[in-house]
């Protein structure tokens, strides 16, 4: 069904090629590589080549003007002592660890309400889905900047109840929260994946549970949640990988500087400033590889933990 399940099933299914496959090999090799040619060129020139290059650069000092100068582990030891980088990690972790579960919880909740043949489902689904299409745009980030500004929409509404709200994005204690809220706002696409998953749960399970007198809550805990767990897992992995790379919203809302007082300085934003603001390409490469390791570690932990909570029907 998904790239993730495909990958994990590939690792399980290892066997010698059948005779038929071997015969086919001879027949298709040339045609196959011709069809794959654009992708192969891209893989080498746009993906793997630059990856190796950036790994090399991460051990150098490089400002685009002079040739890269080998500095060994300097970039990495520098990262250990870089307080702004530590702060950016804290900001990013908070964003991921708060934003992703919150977004998925809302997505699941609305999907549950929408399930079970409610009238007007396509209409509701469109309404909830639209923000996730627009959420990544600069335009919505601009809107957010206004809404959570000192005299923005939120505070105007609060004023009607006699409350004076803070300047949400100009106050370091609430600025990150406003951006997390923007992430939660885009819960539409995981919601659609949840809806698709809910449709796959055979109705007979619920019928059997009803015969046994199960309550709604019991049905949720004992049927819906276990049956949906592969989808929850899939969403979790994808959203975590995506959220670590979040950039546009923080960039626009903070005016490109990750402010106020670095409270929205995402790791990617700091990387951008180092690489493309100050042209410290070596340091930026080291940061990029560090990000890859973090994302890889999170994904690995996710996969290991999934053995304990993800339930596969087959």
């Amino acid at each position, binding site marked *: 069904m998904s790239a993730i399940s495909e990958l994990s099933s590939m690792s399980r299914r290892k066997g010698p090629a059948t005779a038929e496959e071997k015969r086919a090999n001879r027949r*298709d090799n040339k045609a196959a590589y011709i069809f794959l040619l*654009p992708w192969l060129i891209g893989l080498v020139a*746009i993906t793997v080549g630059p990856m190796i290059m950036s790994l090399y650069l991460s051990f150098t000092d490089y400002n685009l003007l002079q040739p890269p100068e080998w500095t060994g582990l300097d970039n990495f030891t520098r990262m250990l002592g870089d307080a702004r980088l530590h702060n950016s990690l804290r900001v990013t972790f908070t964003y991921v660890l708060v934003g992703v579960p919150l977004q998925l919880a809302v997505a699941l909740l609305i999907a549950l309400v929408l399930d079970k*043949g409610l009238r007007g489902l396509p209409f509701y689904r469109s309404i909830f*889905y*639209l923000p996730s299409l627009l959420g990544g745009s600069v*335009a919505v980030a601009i809107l957010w900047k206004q809404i959570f500004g000192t005299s923005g929409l939120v505070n105007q509404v609060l004023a009607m109840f006699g409350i004076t709200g803070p300047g949400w994005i100009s106050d370091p204690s609430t600025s990150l929260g406003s951006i997390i809220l923007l992430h939660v706002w885009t819960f539409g696409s995981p919601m*659609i994946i949840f809806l698709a998953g809910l*449709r796959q749960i055979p109705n007979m399970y619920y019928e059997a549970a009803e015969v046994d007198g199960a309550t709604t809550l019991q049905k949720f805990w004992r049927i819906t949640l276990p049956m949906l767990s592969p989808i929850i897992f899939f969403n979790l992995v994808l959203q975590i990988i995506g959220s670590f790379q979040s950039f*546009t919203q923080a960039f626009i809302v903070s005016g490109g500087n990750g402010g106020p007082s670095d409270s929205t300085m995402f790791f990617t934003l700091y990387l951008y400033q180092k690489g493309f603001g100050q042209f410290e390409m070596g340091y930026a490469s080291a940061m990029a590889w560090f990000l890859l390791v973090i994302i890889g570690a999170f994904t690995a932990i996710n996969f290991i933990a999934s053995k304990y909570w993800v339930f596969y029907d087959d």
Partner: protein
Amino acid sequence: MTELQTLPAPEKAPSSGGKSRGAKFRVGSPKGGGRKRESRGTLAFSRSARLKAMAKHAVLIIAGGIMIYPLLWMVVSSLRPNELIFREPGLWLNSLEMGNYTDGWSALTHPFGHYMLNSAVVVIGSILGNLISCSMAAYAFARLQFSGKKLFFGIMLLTIMLPFHVIIVPQYILFSQIGWVNTFWPLIVPKLLATDAFFVFLMVQFIRGIPTELDEAARIDGAGHPRIFLRVILPLMVPALATTTIFTFIWTWNDFFGALIYLTDPEMFTVPVALRAFVDSQSATSWGSLFAMSIVSLLPVFLVFLFGQRFLIKGIATTGIK
């Protein structure tokens, strides 16, 4: 050709006006599972069930209203005099002010249409690139046997999850050495080389659902792979191509990071970087025109959403595009 079209390709788009349209594109409802549940509900339509449904509608309407309110308010505010944006949280319009749109349109170095045209060039190039390169790769992965297939397929799946940042620095160095900074090539050429592996995967999934008997029949008739690909597979995978087109459109139209890095000359700005230049250059006095241009920039995405929604939802539900 007509024969082929009546064959039950799994996710084939129903011809317009087909009776099964709604049911087929309901998200992941194999065998009309959703329908069944619905009818069961109406049979046992007691008082409490009705109350429950009403409560659900109430929750959904309130939640949906909160979700969509900021967007509606931005549209209304863009039609208001500037000073009201910071005073009027409601949606009521006393008069229609088009000044924000005319002001915003000409607020930057070039008229806003110039940036939209730039975006359109990048979008069209990206769509063509993705359609050609991804469908070719997908055909090889789904239909051809070749050495190293499993390895390459695994690598392809892994690249879907690879963070862009790991390759952006050397990629930038590469493209700047070729002299491609401030051209659209860095944004289009990677698509011509199938680096949006997600679409390769989407198409592989789709082609796997097309019966191989069709290929074999064509092969017996003497068709080679290019012919089978062009005449049999491509016409049958139109829904997957449509999904790819729509997602590529939206993602490329919204793409900020790539444009921010590669396009520094205002002449070459795409819409997202133009908007960013706008928001940076203006003081708080011109939110109206900023909103107006934001809406102009969202309009194409909204239209694609209106007309391509079923492909979008199908695409997400089957592959989990973000």
